[in-house]
């Protein structure tokens, strides 16, 4: 009896020892780096942990770090790569996409991943009650979205109308669990939310069930945890990086970049021009409460071109952005490898050419001021948001540049909500200087901007019919690019859109800010890029130098 008992307890003890060894062994092996806590800041409290309801940066960061998607855009190559789906096929003229799902994948809580989860996620996403921003690009036609499972491990999703770039849209769709009791807290991404203290931090821990392995067959991610400190103050964030309390800063301002350069030069990265644009535009809304003669100036292509030529963009890049920006030539940054129209060049700074254009339109100089053919002195206000120092500085530079051709500018700074109210509700403004954040590479994401009927067609939104021939042509081209699946044809259409925007300048594009970031030298494997999230896009393979046994870059 005792022998039997003894042997039973020995087997149990040996089993426990083996398990303990298995647990400890990986850390004892040379080169194994599954340890360490990466730290960086969120600039606001995440408003949700539901990845389908993401609306702001903090929630987006958590969704990226914790969520699993069917296909992922490689932020470096900008190519779409398999993730939870090993393959996919678009059929039915762009209406249907069929995914082949990866097998033996489990959520962080151990729930198996199946096609049911994808179907559930699509239902949740397209539910109008959810008001998901991520669902907007999928809503191209009226009618329900159908899901079918033609075989185990395969799922077909059919949309009511064709969607261009359909597969790339799934980069944003985090797959929820249909069956887990933990709902959206059960994740397929490299980390899961382990702790959250409102106003202080969000702690993510390594997902032990994450499906991805490195080339040597080791389970990713390497890091044990990520601590996201909620820190709205950019100065404090930069100071903490300087002190070594955090490891990363994304989307760094050029001002902070230069200041940090004195303390942590090796940590700074300039990935070149980013996707975002800073631009100025004139109010062309026919019902705007502006004098008719001013509306006539603002609607004149020659006037807009002259203003554009009188602005010294190179000085802006040098003085305000300390060379961490490039003069912008259009809506698409050169960083967008496929869609950028390489045939365009930045508008030159040429005061004489600007004056000649204005003279041809009947403007002339009178006692040092520019006046139109009816004798009205050319004077207008530029509105911008007070919180953004670089915009106020750009407006101040434009004020000085335009003074050289006799134009008087009143610079008005208001709080951001007041600016938005004026440009979207009351249309009580003359010119405005703002930026546009571009998160999507595909021009279809900009339909709302370029269609004359669009809400975000800012210079003259929601037109019943296009006000000008060139806007009509842009409408036609944008609809054409959205209705063909041929990438080359789409590129040709959108190149022409860029050309028209360059010629007509409804938006006077000023600069593309460079994608600046800071990464502590203790982080191994970082490859900062232009696409968001710039610094931690390859989070699975990041390691900390101390934790990784002193290995460097």
């Amino acid at each position, binding site marked *: 009896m005792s022998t039997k008992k003894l042997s039973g307890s020995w087997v149990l003890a040996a089993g426990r020892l083996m398990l303990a060894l298995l647990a400890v062994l990986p850390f004892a092996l040379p080169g194994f780096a599954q340890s360490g806590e990466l730290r960086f800041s969120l600039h606001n409290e995440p408003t949700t942990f539901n990845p389908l309801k993401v609306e702001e940066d903090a929630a987006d960061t958590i969704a990226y770090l914790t969520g699993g998607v069917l296909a992922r855009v490689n932020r470096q190559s900008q190519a779409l790569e398999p993730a939870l789906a090993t393959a996919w096929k678009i059929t039915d003229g762009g209406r249907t996409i069929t995914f082949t799902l990866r097998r033996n994948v489990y959520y962080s809580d151990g729930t198996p991943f199946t096609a049911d989860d994808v179907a559930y996620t699509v239902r949740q996403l397209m539910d109008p009650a959810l008001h998901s921003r991520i669902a907007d690009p999928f809503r191209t036609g009226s009618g329900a979205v159908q899901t079918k499972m033609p075989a185990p491990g395969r799922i077909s999703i059919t949309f009511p109308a064709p969607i261009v770039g359909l597969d790339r849209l799934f980069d944003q769709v985090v797959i929820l669990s249909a069956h887990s009791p933990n709902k959206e807290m059960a994740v397929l991404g490299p980390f899961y939310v382990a702790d959250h203290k409102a106003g202080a931090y969000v702690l993510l821990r390594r997902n032990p069930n994450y499906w991805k392995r490195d080339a040597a067959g080791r389970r990713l991610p390497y890091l044990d945890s990520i601590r996201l400190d909620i820190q709205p103050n950019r100065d404090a964030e930069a100071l903490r990086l300087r002190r070594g309390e955090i490891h990363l800063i994304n989307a760094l301002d050029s001002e902070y970049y230069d200041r940090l350069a004195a303390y942590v030069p090796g940590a700074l990265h300039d990935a070149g021009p980013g996707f975002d644009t800073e631009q100025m535009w004139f109010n062309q809304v026919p019902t705007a409460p502006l004098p008719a003669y001013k509306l006539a100036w603002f609607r004149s292509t020659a006037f807009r071109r002259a203003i554009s030529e009188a602005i010294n963009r190179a000085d802006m890049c*040098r*003085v*305000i952005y300390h060379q961490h920006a490039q003069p912008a030539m259009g809506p698409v940054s050169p960083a967008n490898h496929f869609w950028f129209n390489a045939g365009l060049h930045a508008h030159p700074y040429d005061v004489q050419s600007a004056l000649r254009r204005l003279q041809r339109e009947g403007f002339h100089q009178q006692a040092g001021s520019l006046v139109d053919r009816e004798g009205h002195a050319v004077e207008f206000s530029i*509105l911008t948001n*007070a919180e953004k120092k670089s915009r106020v500085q750009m407006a*101040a530079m434009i*004020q000085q540049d335009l003074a050289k051709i006799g134009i008087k500018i*009143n610079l008005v700074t208001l709080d951001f909500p007041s600016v938005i109210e004026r440009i979207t509700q009351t249309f009580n*403004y*003359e010119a405005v200087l703002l930026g546009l954040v571009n998160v999507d590479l595909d021009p279809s994401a900009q339909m709302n901007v370029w269609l004359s009927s669009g809400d975000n067609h800012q210079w003259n939104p929601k037109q019943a019919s296009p006000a000008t021939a060139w806007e009509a042509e842009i409408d036609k081209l944008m609809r054409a690019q959205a209705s063909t699946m041929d990438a080359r044809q789409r590129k040709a259409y959108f190149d022409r859109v860029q050309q028209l925007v360059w010629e007509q300048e409804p938006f006077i594009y000023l600069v593309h800010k460079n994608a600046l970031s800071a990464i502590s030298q203790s982080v191994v494997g970082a490859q900062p890029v232009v696409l968001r999230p710039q610094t931690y896009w390859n989070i699975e393979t990041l390691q900390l130098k101390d934790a990784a046994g002193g290995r460097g870059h």
Partner: protein
Amino acid sequence: MRTARKIAMVVIAATLLVCLNAGFLAPAHYAAEFREAPNAAPSRAHWLGTDALGRDLFSRLLYGTRISLLLAPAAALLSTLLAGFIGGAAGYLGGIWERLAMAAADLVLSLPWLFLLITVRALLPLDVSPLISLAVTFALLGGLGWAAGARVLCAGARGLRNADFVLQARISGMHGLRLFAVHVLPNLKPVLCAQFWISVPVFILSEANLGVLGLGVAEPMPSWGGLMRELESMWSPLHEWWKLAPLLLLVAVTGSLQLLISREELTA
């Protein structure tokens, strides 16, 4: 104390003298951009260096001081007059008028004035010159700053309401506005003066607060508040000590004004 007040007087007089002659003393126009030398350290060409756009900081400090130091007293005068009229009349009349005026003062004091200023400023037309926008900013500050002073003046006027000389004036047939103007108001003068001097640094600091938020005086016009916005980007005061000049001047002037107030309060 007398020496300190003398020094305070000298500081204010010298500052006023220099800033009123900004047109002669400033080496450059406040809006002129020397784009080849942004964020420059002090030099012969730029005594206090340049700002982020290459504008001469010494020139901007002179013009900015002129704006802050002339318009803050104007706003203080407006708020003191309003406080004198509302508070004085309420205290003199008493009863329902006093309760109404004090309720209005309490309401104004409880308002988040910063948000109110931001809202009112957002409602203004955009095509106004920087000078008008500047005047409006200070007028708003003055127009919203009467409540605290009104309570003090109300208490002062209430004390005078049944004073012997006021009763005697009433007996001799003097009533209403004339009695208020001839007998009450002159006796409130010391309190009014004290209120005025107290308000001046308050309005200087209020404009500075708005300027730091980027909502003060419109660019390119400088003010102390706008100039101090440059301090936002300072990590080490030792490296760019010259950028502290507007802050030091603000401290010197408001400190001097406080010393002068003590005297007025003693008189009151």
